[in-house]
């Protein structure tokens, strides 16, 4: 009689960790709210696709301006972020600087925008700072990592009395300049995405037009916005040229538009009154404060945290699944030239579409539940990691008699790329969580939902506390992910 073999638990740490995450995600799936609630989801989806293939670029004259503003906000925001991030990177050894950077990058661009909107209003400064601040935190971290990797030997060989600045520009910068340049231009692409979605909170970028045309059911207009956005991202290598870059940087501040003037009284009121917890403001003191904070924690923070965590874990594993399915599409070990070109197009679309926009579209089509968010996060992030892993497999040389098809996938490629796959996935864990929180603004009950409702109800004191909680959660996940990566000896360069 055939007996079930005595299979030992896998000795591979990576396999055990993966299984654990899958188990957690399945448990989360059981308690999550996943549903399609609209009556005619497929008809809406079809109409939307019809809109995309019949784009209408000339319906609104504002579209060109929105495109210009999107680029201008991205350039100004990323430039300021990169410059301040670089300065911060120089003193990144100092603990307080590291903590400060971790904190400012733990708060999503949209949250920063929501905060600044309250006191700067629709002034260009709101959009610029919303990008520049979190980007400065990210730049500081990555630049300092890049600088640390530079060979210290040339520095040691310099005459002792060489000035700090001279030593820096000769012995450190040149050898990592290329990496700094590559990473910065890559962040510029991220900046364009961030800039576009700032439109969803009312800034005059592409997201604003997407939302207004979509909500009115003008799918051809929405399709035009999306196509413009893809073209903008895809043609970056053509129009972002090293020689033109100074021109863009100098010119872009003049194309931010005027917005509304800043009312400085609002700024003062925001800091001295609005964000002070209500019970303290009115002067009742601690006896009112405890019920107030308890209510905030029990009815908003805790459900928000719970939903954010549940959604994050499902989205993380779903991202992994999408990645594992997607990378063969562009790998030279599978398919032919035509299928790979198709794969590239699919992955480019998946990773250029900000998850926020994807989630917004799916939410309109399928109705509110966690499903649109999971699908959006998985498609976007899976597209990014799938692209990176697929490219990595193209560097792998297999023996001539290597198996083909599924066996090649399972026995030759997966074992080789699995560690970097996990590294990228864990790296994006924090990013997925930051996005999960922010998707709440669209009406999914994650932390962003409670932040947004607090702001709608003009309770900025609550909103600020909830944003701080979100930041702490992100910092926690970031450090957990770093611990897991170092335990599994996974290394990776950052992705955005």
């Amino acid at each position, binding site marked *: 009689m055939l007996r079930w073999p005595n299979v030992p638990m896998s000795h591979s740490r990576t396999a055990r960790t993966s299984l654990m995450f899958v188990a957690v995600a399945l448990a989360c799936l059981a308690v999550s709210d996943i549903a399609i609630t609209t009556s005619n989801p497929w008809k809406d989806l079809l109409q939307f696709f019809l809109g995309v293939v019949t784009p209408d670029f000339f319906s609104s004259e504002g579209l060109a301006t929105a495109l210009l503003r999107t680029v201008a906000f991205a350039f100004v925001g990323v430039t300021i972020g990169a410059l301040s991030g670089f300065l911060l990177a120089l003193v990144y050894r100092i603990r307080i600087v590291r903590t400060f950077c971790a904190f400012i990058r733990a708060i999503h661009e949209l949250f920063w925008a929501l905060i600044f909107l309250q006191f700067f209003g629709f002034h260009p400064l709101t959009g610029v700072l919303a990008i520049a601040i979190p980007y400065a935190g990210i730049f500081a971290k990555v630049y300092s990592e890049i600088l640390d990797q530079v*060979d210290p030997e040339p520095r040691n*060989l310099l005459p002792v009395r060489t*000035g700090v600045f*001279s030593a820096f520009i*000769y012995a450190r910068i*040149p050898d990592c300049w290329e990496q700094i340049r590559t990473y910065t231009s890559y962040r510029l692409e991220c900046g364009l995405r961030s800039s576009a979605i700032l439109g969803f909170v009312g800034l005059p970028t592409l997201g604003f037009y997407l939302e207004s045309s979509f909500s009115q059911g003008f799918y051809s207009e929405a399709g035009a916005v999306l196509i413009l956005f893809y073209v903008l991202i895809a043609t970056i290598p053509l129009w972002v040229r090293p020689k033109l870059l100074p021109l863009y940087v100098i010119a872009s501040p003049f194309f931010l538009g005027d917005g509304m003037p800043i009312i400085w009284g609002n700024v003062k009121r925001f800091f001295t009154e609005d964000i002070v917890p209500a019970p303290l403001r009115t002067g009742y003191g601690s006896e009112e404060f405890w019920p107030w904070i308890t209510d905030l924690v029990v009815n908003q923070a805790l459900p928000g945290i719970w939903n954010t965590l549940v959604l994050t874990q499902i989205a993380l594993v779903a991202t992994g699944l999408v990645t594992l399915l997607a990378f063969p599409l562009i790998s030279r070990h599978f398919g032919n030239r035509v299928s790979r070109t198709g794969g590239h197009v699919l992955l480019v679309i998946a990773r250029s579409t900000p998850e926020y926009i994807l989630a917004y579209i799916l939410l309109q089509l399928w109705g509110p539940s966690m499903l649109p968010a999971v699908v959006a996060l998985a498609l976007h992030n899976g597209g990014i990691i799938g692209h990176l892993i697929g490219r990595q497999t193209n560097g792998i040389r297999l023996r001539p008699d290597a198996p083909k098809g599924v066996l090649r996938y399972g026995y030759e490629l997966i074992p080789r790329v699995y560690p970097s796959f996990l590294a990228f996935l864990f790296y994006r864990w924090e990013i997925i969580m930051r996005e999960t929180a922010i998707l709440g603004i669209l009406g999914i009950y994650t932390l962003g939902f409670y932040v947004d409702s607090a702001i709608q109800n003009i309770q900025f004191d609550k909103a600020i506390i909830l944003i701080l909680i979100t930041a702490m959660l992100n910092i926690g996940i970031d450090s957990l992910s770093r611990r897991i990566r170092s335990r599994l000896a996974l290394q990776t360069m950052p992705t955005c």
Partner: protein
Amino acid sequence: MDAPLELTGLSGFYNGQRVLGPLSFTVNPGERIALVGSSGAGKSTLIRLIHDRVNDTAALVPQELGLVNALPVFHNVYMARLDQHSALYNLATLIRPFRKDRAEVTGILERLSMGEKLWKPSASLSGGQRQRVAIARALYREADLLLADEPVSALDGPMANLVMTLLQERFSTFVVALHDVELALDHTTRIIGIRNGKIALDAPSRDLTPADIRPLYD
């Protein structure tokens, strides 16, 4: 170098284990010393230890060369005198070198048959060329003592001889680790043989033949 350099109690440790010394010797002005010994004997460690003691008064050519790969040959050589100029001057040089510096560096490189490589990024050079850039950097440095760890290991015979002659001209005093015994005897005044982290031989070069040195490698 005016005064004798007394080196005492030099010890090298690796993973908490003593791999070199303690050893002591004196470097007199005008002495050109070759450190010989089989690989792993501790020559590199000794060069490092001497450098730590004298630091800025010596030009160092380490085995790893310490070139900035992204910078052209000119700037790698120029780096030896960064301390002679203001930060602004150095910044300007990074963008466009001054004629005077250019002439001086070119002169050194031409003697090393590297004149035409002045603007090549050092990453694009061969091993022997990279080694000559590091030597040019040492020659350009304002120091009167040279410490070098196998500075000619990647050069062919005539070029190695030429380089040793140049070093001899430029530095009246040097301590150079060499594995080529003939080269050591031809270009130095004193040979120090290292074996198992200890000085096993210390004699004037003119009193030695290759046969005297061979036992160090057995």
